[in-house]
């Protein structure tokens, strides 16, 4: 039995998971149209490589990764690209971004796939490139390009952690994936382990998912010899507590190690992937299939909560319609109730805008006033420190709140604001109902913007200094050129100065001899004219 550790704090919100685990994963039918955002991952927006009017096949590249942190985007089915323009996307800002709209032709015709026969024959770099071009990103929610997390640093990776904790209420997509497709998760995990050259693979699953734990264990025993030859895979049931599925907290529980502030898990020899990411890695390499679909939980105020395997780009209202939203629906939340955000254009009066689901969409919660009543008005902080008791990152949330509220960003940073994982445990317990996380997010993005401005200012200073130097140099060069010209003119002047007696005598000599020659020549000319005249 493995020794488990625990992290500080945590809360136990009602899990609400059983509603959506009663039915198996259902494939969502082909929607009427697909809106595929070109920016579904952390980092740079992919560059569109198709044009409106083009016919594309399922799995065809439509967005080329652009920049180091970027990932590819593919056509989720075959059809015609209707437009490439700005569309409202699932983002808390409610701002539009570049999307490709695809009208399916219904044939669902695949592009020719190139599976990797044996990944062990390939170098890690090759496999990374394949994953980048397959658009594989972390499916736990942050959608960070997986190929970058597989880059080997100086530190040897000892432990690979597969995150199946899924601690947020309502969300069951990973649970259902582990129950139904455990074998492929295990194979994907082995690929990841091979790429990182890790010694052990730990599957962290919360103990409220016994079926998933059993399925993974069975899959590991079934694929037995292949895995046994390599390294140890082990499923670890971890206590159910929110936010046990956060990477840093999960690492703490499984290994007892703490990721230092401002460092990455790889710096302490651990790397963490979501179980769904491992599944996608397996599909991408063993079958050559790029990331075109994912499992999404539709829960909340619906007739039948369920998990769907839906194509990326499916309009969320079409997806929700499969579960039949109840009439008192007042909006949709993407993600869980703790960390998710209300989708723009999907609530309030007026027609709903077709926001599409993206690679990061793990769950859609249909909300209603009864399910999520509006929060009571925020009261002043009474410094009860209940937030401190539950903070899983060992921070002082009440102090951070104070600094963020008064915009003392420097002090917020010295109180490790950037170690906050925005889990919302503090807001959950706050007796004054202060939206604490909103303050931290505000402070973080202000600090980031300031750092960005500072960078730009430094760049402008350098450029200005160079500009000044260049002007100075041009001036100097001009002056030098002028000086050289002047020098030449002076030399000419020098030549025109009065001569010494000796030089004068020499010149006179020269003149007389020249005169003499001219006379001689003259006579010769006269002579010839005489001759010609005689003729």
């Amino acid at each position, binding site marked *: 039995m493995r020794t488990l550790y625990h992290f500080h704090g945590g809360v136990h919100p009602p899990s609400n998971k059983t509603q959506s685990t009663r039915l198996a994963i259902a494939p969502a039918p082909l929607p009427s149209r697909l809106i595929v955002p070109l*920016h579904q991952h952390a980092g740079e*927006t992919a560059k569109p490589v198709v044009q409106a009017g083009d016919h594309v096949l399922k799995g065809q590249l439509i967005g080329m990764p652009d920049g180091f942190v970027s990932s590819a985007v593919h056509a989720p089915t075959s059809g015609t690209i209707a437009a490439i323009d700005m569309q409202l*996307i699932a*983002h*808390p*800002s409610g*701002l539009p*971004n570049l999307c490709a709209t695809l009208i399916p032709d219904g044939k669902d015709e695949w592009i020719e796939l190139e599976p990797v026969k044996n990944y062990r024959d390939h170098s890690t770099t090759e496999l990374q490139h394949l994953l980048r071009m397959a658009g594989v990103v972390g499916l736990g929610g942050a959608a960070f390009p997986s190929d970058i997390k597989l880059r080997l640093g100086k530190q040897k990776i000892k432990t690979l952690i597969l995150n199946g904790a899924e601690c947020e209420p309502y969300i069951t997509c990973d649970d259902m994936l582990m129950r139904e497709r455990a074998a492929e998760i295990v194979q994907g995990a082995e690929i990841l382990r091979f790429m990182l050259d890790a010694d052990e693979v730990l599957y962290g699953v919360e103990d409220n998912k016994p079926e998933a734990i059993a399925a993974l264990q069975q899959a590991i025993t079934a694929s037995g010899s292949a895995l046994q030859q390599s390294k140890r895979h082990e499923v670890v049931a971890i206590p159910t507590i929110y936010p046990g599925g956060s990477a840093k907290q999960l690492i703490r529980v499984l290994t007892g190690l703490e990721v230092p502030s401002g460092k990455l898990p790889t710096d302490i020899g651990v790397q963490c992937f979501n179980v769904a990411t491992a599944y996608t890695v397996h599909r991408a390499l063993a079958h050559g299939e790029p990331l075109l679909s994912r499992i999404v939980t539709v829960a909340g105020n619906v007739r039948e909560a369920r998990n769907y395997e839906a194509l990326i780009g499916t309009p969320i209202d079409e997806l929700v319609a499969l579960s039949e939203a109840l009439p008192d629906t007042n909006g949709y939340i993407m993600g869980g109730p703790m960390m998710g955000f209300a989708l723009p254009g999907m609530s309030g009066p007026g027609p709903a805008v077709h926001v599409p689901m993206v690679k990061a969409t793990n769950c859609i919660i249909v909300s209603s006033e009864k399910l999520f009543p509006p929060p009571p*008005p*925020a009261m002043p902080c009474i410094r009860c420190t209940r937030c401190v008791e539950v903070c899983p990152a060992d921070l002082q949330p009440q102090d951070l709140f104070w600094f963020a509220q008064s915009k003392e960003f420097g002090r917020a940073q010295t109180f490790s604001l950037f170690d906050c994982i925005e889990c919302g445990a503090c807001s959950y317990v706050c007796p004054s109902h202060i*939206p604490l996380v*909103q*303050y931290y*997010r*505000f402070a*973080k*993005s*202000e600090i980031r*913007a300031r750092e960005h*401005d500072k960078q*730009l*200012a*430094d*760049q*402008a*200073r350098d*450029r*200005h200094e*160079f*500009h000044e130097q*260049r002007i100075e140099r041009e001036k100097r060069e001009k002056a030098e050129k002028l000086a050289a010209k002047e020098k030449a003119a002076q030399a000419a002047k020098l030549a025109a100065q009065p001569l010494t007696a000796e030089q004068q005598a020499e010149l006179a000599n020269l003149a007389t001899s020249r005169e003499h020659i001219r006379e001689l020549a003259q006579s010769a000319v006269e002579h010839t004219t005489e001759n010609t005249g005689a003729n």
Partner: protein
Amino acid sequence: MLSALLVMAALAIVLGAVLGFAAIKFHVEGNPLVDKIDAILPQTQCGQCSFPGCKPYATAIAAGEADINRCPPGGVEGIQKLADLLGVDFKPFGGDTAAPKPKSVAIIDESTCIGCTLCIQACPVDAIVGAAKQMHTIIAAECTGCELCVAPCPVDCISMQVIEEKISNWKWKYPVYSLVTAQ
């Protein structure tokens, strides 16, 4: 008596040598205060402070010749930072300086540009590309929005465009809640 004098003299020589060495070893080029002030200024090099750039303004502030409230691009926050650094009182924007504007970039209407290079000469950060009788264009990422290129253009083809909010530069807002009347 004599030995005491000798000891004191020897001490004086040794300490003097140490101080002399330190003065050379830890010699600071330029005025560090100017650099500190310059680090706070936004480096637009726009000259709205009536000095020909951020560094000259910083030098003037350090010398006590200029007020701290003459930099519109730095905004109120910039004044606050300067006040904190220099240990003086905060001052609102002074009378003759322009009001702060939202951050913008210059855009050249390329169909009107005649390629006179006047804007290239005016740009303090070399953010305009072009050559005589060739079309010019602005490297938006390098443009500080100083507006110095707008006035010299003989055909008025340069305009300032406010940087709009996009997903890439979007920021979380300060939480505000609507007031509800008690029931």
